[in-house]
């Protein structure tokens, strides 16, 4: 089983990301897939988490993800407040949406660090709501490239399920760009 924890801000779309990944995983052939918001009071702008679990069999654990294999950070301003690396399994992967190089993030631990400009991908694809680029779908493209756990095709299909019309098309394009601009190597920290 792979356990993924998403760190975002209330209203930024981490719950949407967790659901798109679960859908993409299911479509990629993982027959066990669950997605859940953090169970707590949520306020716009405050740090929040969501989780996805994917497995080859039915998932029977429903408690919160406390030892993630993969951590995804939707916004690098969270790194100073969210303790995103807490509980990570040794040798895990952390994916950070940032314009800075991985070496400049000040993160150290037994995990692989992948830095990706997902906001840039969302802007390039025109995924702008209320003047702000929205990365909730695009970052699943970065996840697909960085981990290899789901295919880009399944991510696109899952985004098509989550959005409709032109929003779907733009988010699919943003995920494609994020996929292309993400390294599958990452840096050891």
């Amino acid at each position, binding site marked *: 089983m792979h356990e993924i924890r998403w760190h975002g801000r209330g209203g930024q779309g981490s719950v949407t990301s967790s*659901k798109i990944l*679960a*859908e993409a995983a*299911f479509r990629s052939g993982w*027959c*066990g*897939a*669950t*997605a*859940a*918001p953090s*169970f*707590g*009071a949520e306020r716009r702008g405050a740090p929040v988490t969501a989780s996805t679990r994917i497995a080859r069999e039915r*998932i*029977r*654990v*429903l*408690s*919160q993800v*406390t030892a993630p294999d993969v951590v995804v950070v939707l916004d690098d301003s969270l790194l100073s407040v969210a303790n995103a690396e807490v509980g990570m399994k040794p040798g895990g992967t952390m994916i950070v949406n940032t314009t800075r190089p991985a070496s400049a993030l000040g993160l150290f631990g037994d995990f692989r660090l992948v830095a990706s400009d997902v906001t840039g991908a969302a802007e390039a694809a025109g995924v702008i709501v209320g003047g702000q680029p929205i990365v909730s779908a695009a970052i699943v493209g970065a996840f697909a490239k960085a981990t290899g756990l789901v295919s880009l095709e399944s991510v696109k299909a899952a985004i098509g399920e989550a959005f409709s019309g032109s929003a779907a098309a733009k988010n699919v394009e943003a995920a494609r760009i994020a996929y292309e601009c993400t390294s599958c190597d990452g840096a050891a920290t």
Partner: protein
Amino acid sequence: MTTRLMTGNDAAATAVKLARAQVIAAYPITPQSPVVEQLSRWVEEGELPAEFVAVESEHSALSVCIGASTVGARAFTATSANGLAYMTEQIWWAAGARLPIVMCVVNRAMAAPWNVLNDQQDSMSVRDAGWVQLYCRDDQEILDTTAQAFRVAERINVPVMVCYDGFLLSHTMMPVDVPSPAEVDAFLPPRTAPLQIVEVSDPRNVGPVTPADPREDADGALQPGYMELRAMHNASLLQALEVVPAVDAEWSEAVGRSWGGLVGEYLLDDAEIVLVAAGSLVTQLTLVAETLRAEGVRAGALGIRCYRPFPADALRDRLASRALALVYDKALSYGNEGPICGDLKAALYSMDGEPAVYGAICGLGGRDVTLEHLAQAARDALSDLEAGVAHRAPVWIDLAEGSMR
């Protein structure tokens, strides 16, 4: 049949649509709201030919369902926690009036202190009101059980609560097989033979004052008194012990999936310690039983699917000659013990091969219940059993006593 990823709330709403509910009345409350938001969208879009009544309170929500059900409609509502408490008067009315209403209770902690997260204190607080109560282990069971609930309710003219854990299931997405409308139509015919119906051409007084003793009505027929009506109600509720498994079997025939009827069991055959619970904990306890077996302990899990009526015979049958039953309750009868634990002790009392029964309280107000918490509670219980403890006070799992003043 198609498989889709959906939340428990989506699964409930989907079942209500497939069941062709005719009147839906609700007031929003977390974590229930997405159920009726989805249903109201379907009604608005013309996908569900039902009357959706937005009301000003939960008391009114169930009142609307009572009115609708009285004139023969298939009625549905959903609520949680304080919303359920606010409709308590009508919960008793719906049961006593023998109306086959279905209500999803999305289990949430009772205030005060204020908390929107999961436990089962809300539905447990109305377990004695005369409804059938069914508890679900995952999102698939929510869909299947909600559809089955209409059949059960209409078979015995008793309302049914479908209870499922807030957030842990209500907001967690997982794969769910969705049967086709034709499959569900074959399983669930339109509501027939309502016990109590009002026709415009035949106006009647519904719910007159009923004396304690039987008496002759205006036509000279002997009518039951209040006690007789209550005994009849209880007899009908007890019929659910046959009807719930029968309906589950019919569902299995229609869509190919069964949930075990009254109880669900896992690795029970040779189990010496049996882990007992209701709701999503049962799903986690199947993993805990595996963990304990890997440690050399013969453990199994027993889930209570039908909590009211209480399946005493089924539980006696499954628990005879075990060493220990450990009951995990997400509720407490304050000043006593966990409700399931107390009921189980009473059901097993003085039976041949009666196991020791210990209780553990967990997960109140959304406290995370991990597999390790559950397993450690089982290991501790086995130590107490080996030490010869016959009667044990309820244990509180993961209680931070250092924070208590």
